[in-house]
């Protein structure tokens, strides 16, 4: 059992607060992604878990054991670095065996575990080579093999794929995901790539400026961003945000009233609210419709499977996905309508999401 419990952890570098009062629990065998733009403190948080960085305040426990003041080697972790950090003066075999030799395991056990780890990463043929003779992708595999060979209960990964080229990254992404379901270790994985986060993690912790803004499943983070920033950071194109007027319990977007669920109605703060809607949840019509907002087409980008239309309504820029066969011309006047249950509501001042009744959402989905 290796659950990671992070409680009220702070870490500052001089005057810069890298991690700000973070509390986070990673379940045993869970695959958690720390996601955020560069400088958000995700790597620092990971290094605090590994023990390479000492926390200023707060506690960290792994598998029920308080490790806050323990050095990395006593924490029961293994780590994969962004730079791979493969030891250049050792062969691939010696690299993978390094952690096992430090544990003073018997020779045949080391031999067996190295071969197993190498087999898992498909680098059995490279065991006698030196890192300088390997490609970037192969070094990456050695780094992962070295980390999994020690069979620690917690595996920490710091942007392991960011130095690979696009094609290789895609391949390794799928491979790592398969590997982690097989290994049944607890994984904390740092990335700034939202696609990686969406496709790999059990849960995603979205970070900004040292704080965790949202910690939830990828679907939830995508569908119900807790905050305007998350809606804009995750998803391509980013979520559309429109300022709407709140008048006598009604919400009006660009002169068109839209439907408001009862729970949202309770929390609406007049005079304004922020409406969030994803490009794929907007219907576009070429003729006027009841309850649709008139907009002007600016750009049409054909993406093969669909078209991405950029439209303007007064000052607001709105991105809409349309079927690939719908022909639109720039400056054309069209009408858009938001799918009512896909509208997300945010406080106009703070940018925080208004409360959502997830139970009702789930019930509606099943129903």
């Amino acid at each position, binding site marked *: 059992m290796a659950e990671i419990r992070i409680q009220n952890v702070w870490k500052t570098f001089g005057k810069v607060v890298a991690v700000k009062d973070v509390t986070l629990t990673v379940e045993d065998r869970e695959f958690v992604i720390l996601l955020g733009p560069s400088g958000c403190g995700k790597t620092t948080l990971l290094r605090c878990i*590994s*023990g*390479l960085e000492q926390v200023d305040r707060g506690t960290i426990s792994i598998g029920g054991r308080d490790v806050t003041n323990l*050095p*990395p*080697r006593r924490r029961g*972790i*293994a*780590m994969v*670095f*962004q*730079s791979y*950090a493969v*030891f*250049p*003066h050792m062969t691939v075999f010696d690299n993978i065996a*390094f*952690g096992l030799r*430090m*544990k003073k395991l018997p020779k045949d056990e080391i031999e067996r575990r190295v071969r197993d780890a190498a087999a898992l990463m498909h680098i059995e043929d490279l065991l006698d080579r030196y890192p300088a003779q390997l490609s970037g992708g192969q070094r990456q595999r050695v780094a992962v093999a*070295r980390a999994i060979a*020690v069979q620690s209960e917690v595996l*920490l990964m710091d942007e392991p794929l960011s130095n690979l080229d696009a094609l290789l990254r895609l391949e390794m992404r799928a491979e790592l995901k398969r590997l982690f379901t097989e290994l049944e270790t607890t994984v904390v994985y740092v990335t700034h790539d939202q696609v990686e986060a969406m496709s790999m993690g059990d849960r995603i912790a979205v970070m900004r400026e040292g704080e965790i803004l949202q910690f939830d499943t990828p679907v939830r983070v995508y569908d119900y961003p807790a905050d305007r920033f998350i809606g804009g950071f995750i998803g391509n194109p980013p979520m559309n945000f429109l300022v709407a007027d709140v008048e006598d319990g009604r919400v009006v977007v660009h002169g068109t009233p839209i439907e408001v669920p009862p729970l949202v109605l309770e929390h609406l703060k007049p005079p304004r609210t922020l409406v969030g809607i994803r490009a794929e949840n907007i219907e576009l019509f070429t003729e006027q419709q009841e309850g649709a907002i008139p907009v002007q087409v600016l750009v049409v980008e054909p993406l093969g499977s669909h078209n991405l239309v950029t439209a303007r309504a007064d000052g607001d820029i709105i991105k809409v996905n349309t079927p690939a066969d719908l022909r639109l011309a720039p400056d054309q006047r069209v009408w858009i309508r938001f799918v009512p249950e896909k509208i997300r509501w945010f406080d106009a001042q703070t940018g925080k999401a208004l409360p959502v009744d997830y139970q009702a959402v789930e019930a509606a989905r099943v129903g």
Partner: protein
Amino acid sequence: MRRWSWSRVWLHVLAVLLALWVIVPIYLIAVAAFSPRDVIYKYPKPLFPTQVSLETMLFFIRSSGVLDSVRRSIVVALLTLAVSMAVGAPAGYALARYVFPGRDTFRIAIVSTRAFPIVILSIPLAVSFINLGLYDSVISVALMHTALALPFTILVTSSVFASVPVDLEEAAMTLGCSRLGAFWRISLPLTLPGLAAAAIFTFVLSWNEVFAAAILTLRNRTLPAHVLSVLNESPLPFRFAGGFFLLVPALIFMLFIRRYLFNLWGRVVR
């Protein structure tokens, strides 16, 4: 065919001239050092070795006081090497690895110790060593040479350590090493060639140093100090052979240390 622009040609001409400026005297000394006595006294001297013989070199080595001073020079150089590596390598490691308050000031301070002309320091130093009872001993010369060598030892080792990414040590630490263990197993093997170069550099610096050695010793002279003190009354073969003998370690050293000298100022971590 590559087209050579005039600026490139000039660059090469200058480089060749500069190289000749250094190489020609070395070459002439070497030719003389391995010629027999009568050839050395000939005028004009031959530009190419006509007869090769060890006679001149043997004459130098057998001269009185030479072997003793060679032995002392080696002792001084080894002491200098040991002390300056023991003090300088950890300092270089700290400079390469840690960001600490006053780090840049420290760097400048290290170099600025070389700004003091040793001529000014020499008299007070001689007096201090006399008071301490260390005058005219290999220890006093070694201490002085250590002081002279330390700035370079620190800067060179810091650039050597900076060439090993921190990630490697950190990876070792996550794999079961202590900080010291990570240094021992990862950084040390990777920096050994560079550290060896720094050590050789220190050795050569001490081996070649003449001023401090001449001032701090009277009877127990190191080789350069000895050669300097007897130079005026010694015959030509002695001068050529001595010159060549003193040159050799420096030449060997250059082959080793070349690539480390290029990034003397080191890359800085984060």
